[in-house]
């Protein structure tokens, strides 16, 4: 088990920069999510930690040892591939024992370890089957078995649930998290699925265009996004953005949208320009006819316990998540209020969140 420290990690492919000087720390035993849209550099980062790509510059420390330029075989980490990459010419047992055989471990011991891992994963029954005919879930378990059998310092997982059916993915995510809680092994997990990241991760790094946008716990990332990209990427429906113009000095705690004054968390810095964006999560929008900030209802989506109401407001479209018991009619114009302490303010030009009294903890990449 080990702590992984990434310092100024950078990777260029020709003129294309896949990862731009990332810095973050994965604490010992943490389930760490690398989250971002495809092409954001998360997989490249993972592959550099694993030793499948050599970084252009930067440092990778695993368990106190600098390994950035070392071959994968000397790093003592395991990798679970998206397509599992089980050796197709070997059966389940030989797939799982492969990493042990490479170390020259005695046969009896290999057998014992494989049996132990098979028991943890509940795959004792398929050990002698060829991997070709296995179901997606069993392949996933075999791939995990091959990873954990060696008790490596850390696990790298590249969208390991991506190849599974939606229905089964949920189940496997729970299984994976349970396995991690049991083994307490440092795990770096790449995904583009924000729900998966929130559900399973202890920490999340959100990446975009090779840049670390934010680094924090799922709750920090959700409640206090560091950038507009993060606010938009995490949460479904995404955070509402209401662009407005105004000069906000340090200490300000309200904004004016149209004629309505809206209370916000107190600003800890002076806004760099007049072009600002107010961010509000759909669940923090309330329908309140007393409010002078009004919007016309364009559509409603029924989701069981809640419903998503899309409104056209003076500063743009707003989606509100409200209890489905509330009766709303398309075409009606209705007043809107926001939960003050949850609002975020962004500088429109840079997309960066302005420091307020509530988001001081946020780590910006």
């Amino acid at each position: 088990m080990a702590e992984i420290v990434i310092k100024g990690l950078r990777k260029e492919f020709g003129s294309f920069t896949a990862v731009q000087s990332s810095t973050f720390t994965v604490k010992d035993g943490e389930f760490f999510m690398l989250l971002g849209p495809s092409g954001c550099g998360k997989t490249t980062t993972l592959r550099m930690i694993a030793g499948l790509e050599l970084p252009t510059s930067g440092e990778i420390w695993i368990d106190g040892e600098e390994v950035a330029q070392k071959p994968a075989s000397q790093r003592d980490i395991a990798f679970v591939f998206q397509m599992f990459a089980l050796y197709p010419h070997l059966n389940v047992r030989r797939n799982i024992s492969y990493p042990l055989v490479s170390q020259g471990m005695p046969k009896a011991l290999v057998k014992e370890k494989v049996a132990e891992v098979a028991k943890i994963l509940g795959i004792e029954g398929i050990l002698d089957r060829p991997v070709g005919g296995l179901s997606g879930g069993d392949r996933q378990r075999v791939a995990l078995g091959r990873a954990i059998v060696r008790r490596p310092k850390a696990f790298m997982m590249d969208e390991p649930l991506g190849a599974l059916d939606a229905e089964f993915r949920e189940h496997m995510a729970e299984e994976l998290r349970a396995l991690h809680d049991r083994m307490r092994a440092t795990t770096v997990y790449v995904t583009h699925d924000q729900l998966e990241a929130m559900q399973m991760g202890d920490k999340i790094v959100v990446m975009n265009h090779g840049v670390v946008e934010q680094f924090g716990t799922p709750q920090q990332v959700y409640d206090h996004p560091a950038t507009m990209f993060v606010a938009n990427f995490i949460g479904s429906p995404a955070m509402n953005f209401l662009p407005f113009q105004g000069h906000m000095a340090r200490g300000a705690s309200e904004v004016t949208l149209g004629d309505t004054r809206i209370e916000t968390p107190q600003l800890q810095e002076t806004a760099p320009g007049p072009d600002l964006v107010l961010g509000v999560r759909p669940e923090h929008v309330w329908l309140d006819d007393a409010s002078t900030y009004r919007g016309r209802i364009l559509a409603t989506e029924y989701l069981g316990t809640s419903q998503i109401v899309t409104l056209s407001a003076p500063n743009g479209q707003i989606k509100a998540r409200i209890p489905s018991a509330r009766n709303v009619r398309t075409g009606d114009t209705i007043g809107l209020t926001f939960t003050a302490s949850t609002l975020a303010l962004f500088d429109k030009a840079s997309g960066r969140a302005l420091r307020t009294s509530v988001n001081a903890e946020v780590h910006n990449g």
Partner: protein
Amino acid sequence: MSAFSVTEPSARSKGIAAVLVFLYAFITLLPLLWIISTGFKTGPDSISYPPKVIFTPSIEGYVNLFTSRTRINEEDRATLSPPANFAEAIVRERDMVITGPSRFGERFLNSVIIGFGSTFLSIFLGTLAAYAFSRFRVPLKDDLMFFILSTRMMPPIAVAIPIFLMFRSLGLSDTHLGMILLYTGVNISLAVWLLKGFIDEIPREYEEAALIDGYTRFQAFRKVVLPQAATGIASTAIFCLIFAWNEYAFAVLLTSGTAQTAPPFIPTIIGVGGQDWPAVAAGATIFLLPVMIFTILLRKHLLRGITFGAVRK
């Protein structure tokens, strides 16, 4: 009336297809069957008109193929001891005696050495080159691949004269090594291109998994890539062997004695003691066997290999 199906052909079209396939197979195999049957005819049977389809089989052709014989006259025949074996007996009936083995055996062995040797070398070099082209950032990769392909852009025999001169000055004429190198040179472009296609289809993740599991690059290649590429290697090997085995023009030009292969030798049988068609047919039949056996052994791989990569999975 039976139900109409989009995917299942009707009994009638199945029947027509079967007849066509059978007819095609018969037409293609007819020369082969004729050669094999001629090998078991006697000399007169082989040239009789109308041709004989039903005949009494004889192994005279095979005996003639493997032996040198000389004609004897009546008086000498009386002084000879009785034939020592069946071959002697057959030859004796034609007023001849066996004077020794023919050169067919060694020519055939030359074909085996040169054919399999060049196939092995082509596959060995081709696999390594294809792997490198497929996996590594090779400078000028596309140009190199084109250069390799360009050796195929004219018939190899077009460069016969330069090769003849090169072989003469290097002392490679009429040597096994020379022929192996020549056939390897011709086959290597085919091998690299075919094998690169096969290796491209093998996901890199398998090797990466092996690298992570503590194996070196070469171990990953040997233990993970090679078993995966077996199909491609087998079908490429068949193509290489068929070329090297059947090659005639260079063999005529560059070999005469020690390294002569079977193709240029077989026609020379005709000249020994009249037009001995059964012996020629016997030689052709035996010559066919190795490639036939090799192809049958690897046919599963060959079929998979030919269609491999045709459909994106």
